[in-house]
């Protein structure tokens, strides 16, 4: 069967669900964060697929933006996790239940 738009979209959707699964099931902040990255990547894949099959480069520019934002987000997010770890000596979400440090 020839790989067309639905194929790529389904892969993207399944990847997104995997990311979601990671966020729901895993309890380590870092792994949850990685799962978020996976979800962003799934969105990227969908956008590139749209861009290819609709013959329009706008989607790829969007992906470019997403990658940049993701990089910035990771930098800040990891800095937050490190700061949190310094304060509380844990990165397990079930230990981080209070609003105030």
């Amino acid at each position: 069967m020839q790989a067309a738009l639905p194929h790529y979209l389904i892969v993207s959707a399944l990847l997104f669900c995997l990311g979601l699964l990671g966020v729901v099931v895993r309890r380590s902040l870092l792994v949850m964060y990685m799962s978020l990255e996976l979800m962003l990547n799934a969105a990227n894949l969908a956008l590139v697929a749209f861009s290819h099959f609709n013959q329009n480069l706008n989607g790829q520019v969007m992906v470019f933006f997403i990658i940049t934002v993701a990089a910035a987000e990771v930098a800040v997010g990891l800095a937050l996790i490190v700061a949190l770890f310094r304060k509380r000596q844990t990165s397990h979400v079930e230990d981080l239940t209070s609003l105030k440090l």
Partner: protein
Amino acid sequence: MPQLTDLLFYAFAGMTLLFGFLCVANPLSRNPVTSAMFLVLTIISMAGLFVLLHAFFLAAVQILVYAGAVMVLFLFVIMLLDLKEEERRKLNKVAVGLGSLAVLGLAGVLVRVLAGATPLIAAGSKPVEGSTRELGRILFQSYLLPFEILSILLLVAMVGAILLSKKELK
């Protein structure tokens, strides 16, 4: 007879999903480093999918930024924090079961809906090449303002990360 590109699509898609699964729910290891390494593999096989979609520039950037920088940052943090705790904890079975069920439901709905997707433009005409030149032209013409805003975002992120990782703010 299937085309080579289709075979490659199935190969890369299968690899992406397999590594993605091993990243989030590896039955053998709950070590964060393992997750990170499988995420790297996921990203690399996704770059393969990008190449199949003629997005060469993005494929290279995907590897360069995600695999080369972001994931190394993750590894750094994992190693510096030396996380061993999650491996020792027990999983809450009910939560895992319900969560997986919800995700499965979502996956079912999404697949059902997306299976009928058709492109707005009929297939057959020449596909666009995601070459650097074309991408740059669009980026610096139609998307100039978002691009500039993005650069400010990066600056803000940089300042924020530096401030957060300082020992104590006086």
